[in-house]
């Protein structure tokens, strides 16, 4: 089995990252809060890692719940 490749969502605020974590968990999307990777500049110290196949689900779920994101990167 191939190891999944990941993307990350960056947020302006830690509290926004935590809000997003909660919403994506409720939507049963596999995510994890991780420190922002060193090579990505960031607005807060944590970001949400997701499996890259879920990128559309992540985007649409967050948009539907009006969660503001800073940027989305593929790792």
């Amino acid at each position: 089995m191939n190891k999944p490749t990941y993307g990350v969502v960056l947020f302006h605020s830690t509290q926004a990252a935590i809000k997003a974590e909660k919403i994506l968990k409720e939507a049963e999307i596999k995510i994890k809060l991780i420190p922002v990777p060193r090579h990505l500049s960031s607005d807060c110290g944590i970001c949400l890692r997701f499996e890259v196949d879920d990128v559309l689900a992540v985007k649409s779920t967050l948009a539907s719940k009006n969660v503001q994101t800073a940027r989305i990167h593929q790792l």
Partner: protein
Amino acid sequence: MIYMDNAATSYPKPDVVIQAMTDYMKNIGANSGRSSHRLAIEAGHIIYETREAIAELFNISDPLRIIFCSNVTEALNLAMRGFLKPDDGVITSSIEHNSVMRPLRALEEEGVEVTVVNCSSQGFLEPREIQAAIKANTKLIVLNHASNVIGSILPVAEVGEIARQNDLLLLLDAAQTGGAYPIDVEAMNIDLLAFTGHKAMYGPQGTGGLYIREGVDLKPLKWGGTGSRSDEERQPDFLPDRYESGTLNIVGLAGLGAGVRFVLAEGEDNIRGKEKNLTQKLLDGLTNLKGVTVYGGLDIDRQVGLVSFNIDGLMPSEVGFQLDEEYEIMCRVGLHCAPAAHKTIGTFPTGTVRLSLSYFTTEEEIGKTIEAITKIASK
């Protein structure tokens, strides 16, 4: 010992509040929004879950629009100082606490026009009086939801409708109602909601906050580190960080979250129902006593769980001292930080004796309190 001073701060607190605070102190302890290790994230969860519980309590759609402050006074200062500019007009009522009046008087010295609308001697406000006070420069209406002196409840939804129709903002001071009386920021058209954590929301002292409706921008009350945009020397413009500089009172917020979840689990209707019943008993017991004057409308549907009274020939301080010394009943006496309210009800400068109950007050305690006041009044 009978604690009848819940309008100053509620006591006791639910056990879950103490447990949540102890759990944070013992097992988590970290700061939030600065580092990214697991304990920092745990602390962030606690803060967010407290926001979420408060959002549910007040029907706020986005928990991130709740700003935590050290108390409702700071929240009111942030709202009023952050919004009003010189030459703006603001309308308030004559039964406000000094947490509203003093910031407004300070703003008046800076050129803000303050209009105080009179309430009745029973502490009630006619919405049309607000309508009549609106001028071309009026920007904001500031009201307390219930008087901390006589417990009268103001017609917030009606004033909210007036505010909406006239394109004004409504700032509500929910110090005496948040948790004990239903508040819905949408149904009541509340743009700014200032609340305290340590009264009927059953959190510890040092907690409170401000809800800011989307589209309303305030100047911050303080600037500083937020953990976000650390490369920038300018204050961030997103919420909650814009208004939450410096480390939060995380242990306090852990307790506040547990307190609000307690309120949600017990049910606001049950809490209000019990407090109404107790307040009615207290009113019934005191209003017919010879030599005792009870203030307010004596209308339980328009009164929160506090009752102000005086005994003929005795200063409030003497009554309070006797209640404490001889009966171990604790209450508050005097002016209750609201001189305008006392002028409105005719008890300035002497003040009143104020009994205030909570969800934890028992019928037996109410009975003993009435008994003690009966004895003091008949001496």
